[in-house]
């Protein structure tokens, strides 16, 4: 029981408790409070129990937004993860090329989200945008304000352009951390380039790729600024993702109760998925029979 002798150690943890309380717990409790009440105005509120949760879970538009969200995040991960790893593998290992490629890769990451939206909004416009007008002049009708597919393509391009560098940088860091002797050993074993990737590089990158996957999943699952700037969730509801729908509900229609219930469900979904991802990635590829 020696461990408990130094009770003063708890004081060192207090600041963290305070910060977490103000940044996370207190706002979350406010939302929980909203989610169980019907609010008509200041001082006018009725306790409604789990009614908003039931209504939200049955909301067809929420279901649509959720599936849209899954499709979007799934596509983002499917493209960005392999692409990021490929870029990392192709990056130079020494010389001036290293700093050059690192800086070039980091550029998109430095641009604010709403600016990214504006850049691509203009870039893909059929009348004045470089990309849009070239595509249209080639005879392919491309207009993200009219066609849901074009809106999705534009969003994916934006997302991949913006965030693949993050995956590439993380993967590159993972690759650089592999000691040179591993490659030597592989050469002496006569292992092919693919075997070297599969049995040395990939397992050694597991840690950073787990982080990249979790970050990219969470971020893409919470996407808001890009579709908001591009089409505001349209055309129709084709790019109305969960967060866009949530903001429409809370700010547009001022339905605080349903929006709060929605937020909590949203939060729990993200939490549950991250937990699943983490567990799966911890165990995948361990003790496999090659």
């Amino acid at each position: 029981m020696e461990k408990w002798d130094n009770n003063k150690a708890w004081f060192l943890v207090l600041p963290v408790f305070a910060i977490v309380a103000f940044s996370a717990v207190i706002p979350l409790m406010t939302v929980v409070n909203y989610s169980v009440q019907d609010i008509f105005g200041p001082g006018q509120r009725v306790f409604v129990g789990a009614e908003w949760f039931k209504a939200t879970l049955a909301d067809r538009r929420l279901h649509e937004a959720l599936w849209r969200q899954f499709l979007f995040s799934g596509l983002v991960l499917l493209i960005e993860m392999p692409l990021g790893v490929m870029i990392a593998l192709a990056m130079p290992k020494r010389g001036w090329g290293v700093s050059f490629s690192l800086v070039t890769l980091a550029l998109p990451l430095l641009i604010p989200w709403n600016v990214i939206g504006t850049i691509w909004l203009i870039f893909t416009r059929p009348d004045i945008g470089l990309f849009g007008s070239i595509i249209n002049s080639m005879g392919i009708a491309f207009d993200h304000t009219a066609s849901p597919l074009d809106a999705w393509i534009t969003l994916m391009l934006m997302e991949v352009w913006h965030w693949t560098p993050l995956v590439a940088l993380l993967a590159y860091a993972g690759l650089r951390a592999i000691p040179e002797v591993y490659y030597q050993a592989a050469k002496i074993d006569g292992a092919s380039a693919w075997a070297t990737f599969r049995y040395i590089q990939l397992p050694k990158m597991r840690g950073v790729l787990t982080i990249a996957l979790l970050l990219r999943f969470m971020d893409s699952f919470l996407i808001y600024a890009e579709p908001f700037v591009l089409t505001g969730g349209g055309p129709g509801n084709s790019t109305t993702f969960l967060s866009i729908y949530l903001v429409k509900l809370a700010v547009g229609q001022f339905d605080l109760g349903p929006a709060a219930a929605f937020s909590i469900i949203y939060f729990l979904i993200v939490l549950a998925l991250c937990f699943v991802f983490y567990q799966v990635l911890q165990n995948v590829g361990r003790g496999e029979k090659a």
Partner: protein
Amino acid sequence: MSEIRSDKHTPEKPETLLLRNIDKVVGRDVHLENINLEFESSAINVVLGRTLSGKTSLLRILAGLDRPTRGTIEINGKDVTGVSVRKRSVAMVYQQFINYPSLSIYENIASPLKIAGFKKAEIDRHVRKTAEMLHIDDLLDRLPTELSGGQQQRTAIARALVKDAELLLLDEPLVNLDYKLREELRLELQEIFRQHKSIVVYTTTEPSEALMLEGNIVLIDQGCVIQSGPTRKVYHNPAALKAAEIFSDPPINYIDATVQAGTACLGQDIEFPLPPHMSSLLSGEYIFGVRSSHLFLLRTGESDLEMHAKVELSEINGSETFIHVDCGYCQMVVQEDGVRSARIGAEIKVYVSPSCFFVYNKEGNLVASPSNGVVQPMPG
């Protein structure tokens, strides 16, 4: 495993690896200079040198990972200088414990055999036999990260052995293990190497490790071979001061000496008749070398020289104590068994028998040695 190669080589004829005039220059740094060596499969070949002396560069060239800037490598009379590492028959064990991280111990050991295209049953037999030899047969289902450092290195060694390559290279394989594991694995390795038919090259920084492994030794320093030959013979006749320095831990002590008319003088006040092994020395200036283990704090014999010295530092190394002393005309390290304490600045007496002196001329070449080739019982 010998049956795999039995058709190619008759067991009576040892395999040989020959290095001729090897240079390795990277940029402006000379990593190896004019290396001429012959390694045989009949005994283990130990390469002893300090860190950055060129041991690893030499192994990389032996493995075919690097091409020498100049010179040729022959295995069994066949020139393999330009042959790529993938086409050579080489296995290597490193300082770090290198295994495939996502494969089980079994799969790790089996990997070289799979690449070589062996049948499943045969792979299984070899893997289990080798694992048993290295006492990891009950860990075959585990992953490398689930094992201790010693077990991980055993796996790496098993992977190298199972390949049954012509050339087995070990680059300071025990340096990252703790003392007890190192002793244990060293004894086992000696036995394994004895049974193994490959040419084994083993690098180390520790003279004691080289002595325990026996076989043949190459002393290497700053990219040059200082001396090579049977380990015990080299230990008892280090041909140059540099060789004696590398092959002694702590490094050999030097005393400037003058020889005149059958007597030798150390400093101002020590004069003694030449012991038998020095009797043929001509008059002149010499450097006497004496290993720390031959210096004592108590008189051990009639003919011992008594040197007055001041303690500068005392350090405990394992179960031994190294006492650094200053005699005025020389500085020495006395190696004493057991943990002793010596007060810094204390005046003490150091005893040494003149029969233990190696004699070097001013150019640093061996002129007389205590054994003159006669094998003595080894110290410590």
